[in-house]
Structures are given as structure tokens and as C-alpha cells.
């Protein structure tokens, strides 16, 4: 774990505990940045869903693979990056969970929820893992650039 100025990053195991921890960190940092309750919930859930994808679908719980999670406060944006060390997801195979034929599927809503809750969602798959970038615009009193405390 390291914190420098407005950026903090974590390297975490591929476990369920990582998912819970990522959500807790997102909640804490979003709160410190002055987001409202609804936005905090949205950010926390987006990070949770991203962590689920990294742990389950990316690293497949492999003990030798890590998840890195970074929060960066740029002044006007909260930028969250989640990287796994899996094989990289095939973006063309992500179904539309709102399509009638998919409504009753029991999975496949994580990326949809992230896109619903965040201002920007970028997914960059590669042979060595997937990088997910989540951006939420800061509207609260700290939008001017106050640092996140650690």
C-alpha cells in the first residue's frame, strides 16, 4: 500500500476479501472527497463490480495473480484503476443485460452497472490482463484538489 499526494494504490490477492476491501476503500475515499450518499454508493458498487471481475473472471482466484487497485484525485475527477493478471476479457462477448433474452440471466450485469454509475468506464484487455478505468467527476467541496488522507 502506498500513498503519494493525491494517489493511493494497493496490490491485493485474488480473493473474496479483496472485493470487500476494495469496496470499503472506495467508500472511504469517496466520502473523504465529499461525494453525496448516492454517489458514494455508486462509486463503491462500481469498484466492487470491477473487483469482482478482476478476482473471478480475470485472475480466476489464482493465488499467484494479483489485483492492483488505484485511486487518483486529479482535482476534477476521481480516477479509479483496477488491473488483473488474467487472459484479458473479450469485449465482444459482453451481452446486453437489458435485452429481453438476457433479462433472466443470473450474471452479466457488472459492467452495465459500472457504466450506469460512473461518468467514464474504460476497459483495456490484453494478453497479460485487463485494465479497468472508472472515472467519477468530483462535485463536492474538495473538487479544488484537497488530498485524500490515508
Amino acid at each position, binding site marked *: 500500500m502506498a500513498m503519494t499526494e493525491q494517489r493511493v494504490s494497493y496490490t491485493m490477492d485474488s480473493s*473474496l476479501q479483496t472485493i470487500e476491501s476494495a469496496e470499503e476503500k472506495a467508500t472511504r475515499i469517496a466520502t473523504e472527497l465529499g461525494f453525496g450518499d448516492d454517489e458514494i454508493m455508486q462509486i463503491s458498487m462500481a469498484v466492487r463490480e470491477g473487483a469482482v471481475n478482476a478476482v473471478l473472471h480475470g485472475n480466476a482466484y489464482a493465488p499467484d495473480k494479483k489485483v492492483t487497485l488505484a485511486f487518483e484525485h486529479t482535482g476534477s475527477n476521481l480516477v479509479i484503476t483496477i488491473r488483473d493478471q488474467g487472459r484479458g476479457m473479450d469485449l465482444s462477448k459482453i451481452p446486453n443485460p437489458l435485452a429481453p433474452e438476457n433479462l*433472466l440471466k443470473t450474471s452479466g*450485469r457488472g459492467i452495465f452497472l459500472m457504466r450506469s454509475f460512473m461518468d467514464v468506464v474504460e476497459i483495456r484487455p490484453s494478453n497479460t490482463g485487463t485494465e479497468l478505468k472508472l472515472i467519477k467527476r468530483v462535485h463536492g467541496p474538495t473538487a479544488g484538489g484537497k488530498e485524500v488522507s490515508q
Partner: protein
Amino acid sequence: MSMKIGSRQVDGVMILDCSGRITLGEGSVILRDTVRDLLSKGNKKIVLNLAEVNYIDSSGIGELVSAFTTTRNQGGELKLLHLTKKVNDLLQITKLYTVFDVKDDEATAVKAFK
């Protein structure tokens, strides 16, 4: 807060009072096991009271869908009761609000079974 489920019967309808979080892992497993146990015992009229469910993730949403379809496939019915704003919002944006039979009054939910 992990998930807890209490069960009670009202006029032949099993009401599951859920509280906590329905998320990947323990919360989802508890819900799945509870519904399957009810169905295996012939209880096919089920109400999930979600009044005390303060958080649900995509895996939890998937478990609600699974409980709904599993019950329906066995000739039963499953209804949702007392959605919190968070859960209600999630079901709205995922368009599942139109799939589930959602009630905000227990007596109405019980009477709504065929």
C-alpha cells in the same frame, strides 16, 4: 453486515425476512440455499421481504433472478416485498422491476398468490 434470513408462514405463504447484504459469497449462498430448501419441502409460495436489505450487488441481483426462475420452474411463485430505495433503483435500471412481482404491503403480497 452479513445476510440473515428469518422465515415465517402466513396463510400458506412462506415469508423470508431478509436482512443485511445480498452479495457475492455468503449472502448469495444463504439466499439460494434457503429458497431451494423451501421448494424441496413443497413450499412454492414465497415472498422475499427485502425491507432490511441495505445492499445488493450484481451477484445478489443474479440470485434474486435465480430464486425467481427456480421457483417458477417448479410451479411456484416468488414475490418481492418492501424494496429499499437502493434495491428498487437497481431493479429499475436493470429492467428487472418489470420481471418481478413487487409488493409494498405484506397482506397484499400474501393475497396475490393464486
